[in-house]
């Protein structure tokens, strides 16, 4: 017994070394579990506050308030406009269906398109307009990285402002990521520049399903995986899948830049795309609250139960 204690004492530092390394690698491997311990992330109030202070110093402080005010207003206008469009769409559909049956379906479609495009010309350039069923919560990015392999952002809104885990985050130009850890006033976001994060996507032109996953090399580009279809061209637009509940449906992800059909992964293509979001200049983002999500979820639950 005494020898054992002596032995342990002699090797105490080595044992401590092993113990600490064990803790570290447990944290690294169980990163998702770790994110639940909000105190250990940049969403914790101490870290968040100091990041906020740093941000306060580094941003041009006299423009800050004005900026935020405009952003709020923008968000309001966007959702207002979007709900208007949706109403119009519904009205138009009803009107056109009523008009008569002498028009062919094709003519009706083109008429409907004309009437819509006459009012709001370019939906592509004003993407936020299409997110009608979503509430947008504007937030300021107080910390971001894009040069690591697993990048996270920290924003200055938390559970008090209605941010919840799993919400999607976008800018007006494209998707950013999803909320991962939330404290009272701050939240961390897993960026799409994170090698373990996949986003269900599709090609806008033909609806071919694919998955966006970053490969950790260049923050301007990303991979598009699991696309078995051959009908993909350089320049195609990649949008979020209609089946996802986190992002607005068909919201911009990026543009196809390079397609290699001879891939090591069997039938799948190797597709590179240019991301629509510029991560170097990210300063404001919108967190999206899907107002119907809880409804959708409960419906899905009921369906599964049955």
């Amino acid at each position, binding site marked *: 017994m005494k020898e054992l204690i002596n032995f342990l004492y002699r090797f*105490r*530092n080595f044992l*401590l*070394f092993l113990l*600490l*390394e064990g*803790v*570290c*690698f*447990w*944290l*690294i491997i169980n*990163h998702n579990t*770790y*994110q639940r311990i909000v105190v*250990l*992330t*940049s969403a*914790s109030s101490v*870290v968040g506050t*100091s*990041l906020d202070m*740093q941000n306060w110093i580094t941003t041009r402080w006299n423009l800050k308030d004005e900026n935020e005010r405009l952003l709020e207003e923008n968000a309001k206008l966007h959702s207002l406009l979007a709900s208007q469009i949706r109403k119009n769409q519904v009205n138009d559909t009803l009107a056109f269906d009523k008009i008569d049956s002498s028009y062919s379906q094709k003519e009706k479609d083109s008429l409907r398109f004309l009437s819509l495009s006459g009012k709001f010309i370019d939906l592509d350039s004003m993407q936020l307009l299409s997110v009608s069923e979503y509430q947008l919560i504007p937030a300021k990015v107080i*910390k971001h*990285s894009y*040069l*690591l*392999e*697993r990048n*996270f952002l*920290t924003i200055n809104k938390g559970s008090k402002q209605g941010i919840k885990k799993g919400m999607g985050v976008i800018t007006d130009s494209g998707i950013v990521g999803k909320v991962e850890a939330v404290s009272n006033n701050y939240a*961390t976001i897993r960026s799409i520049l994170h*090698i373990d994060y996949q986003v269900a996507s599709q090609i806008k032109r033909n609806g071919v399903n694919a998955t966006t996953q970053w*490969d*950790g*090399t260049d923050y301007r580009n990303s991979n598009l995986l699991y696309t078995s279809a051959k009908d993909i061209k350089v320049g195609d637009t990649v949008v979020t899948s209609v089946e996802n509940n986190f992002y607005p449906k068909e919201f911009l992800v990026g543009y196809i830049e390079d397609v290699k059909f001879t891939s090591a992964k069997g039938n799948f293509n190797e597709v590179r795309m240019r991301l629509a979001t510029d991560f170097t200049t990210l300063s404001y983002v919108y967190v999206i609250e899907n107002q119907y999500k809880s409804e959708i979820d409960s419906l899905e639950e009921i369906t599964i139960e049955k």
Partner: protein
Amino acid sequence: MNSSIITPVISFFIYWILQVLLFRNVALFDMAFCFVYVGFLLLLPLETSLTSLLLLGFAMGLAVDIFYDTAGVHAATMVIIAFIRPSLLQFLRPSGGYDNVESPTLSKLGFNWFIIYAGITLLFHHSILFLIQGSNFSLWFSNFFSILASTVLSLFVLVIGQFLFYRSR
């Protein structure tokens, strides 16, 4: 209270704050990063026990991890660096030994010695860091340049710091 306890605590916070608020934002050419917080471990007094080194290294690593959202990567690296520090100091022992030397600083042990000591430690640290962080071995080549560039940058900043703040001691 004993100043031998207070000084490391103060320097812990100084290195930590400098790292997470200032040098976290430094990235030259998108590839050279600056990890000056290693200097905290590097410059602890010579008589610091291995137990304290391990615990302090772990604490510093975790404190940095929280700001980087890297979950244990920096902590794991710092614990390894802390573990090899006594052996490295033994290996680099100058011919006169470490008499009258409290901490392994540039002013006490000379420019060349410090460059070798800090350079080896930083190279170790950055290699281990990128190895743990990188999941993809196809990135090894670009990481290799990143490791070298970051080592040079961190070393440069540490040496400047030595000239500025550790001179008169």
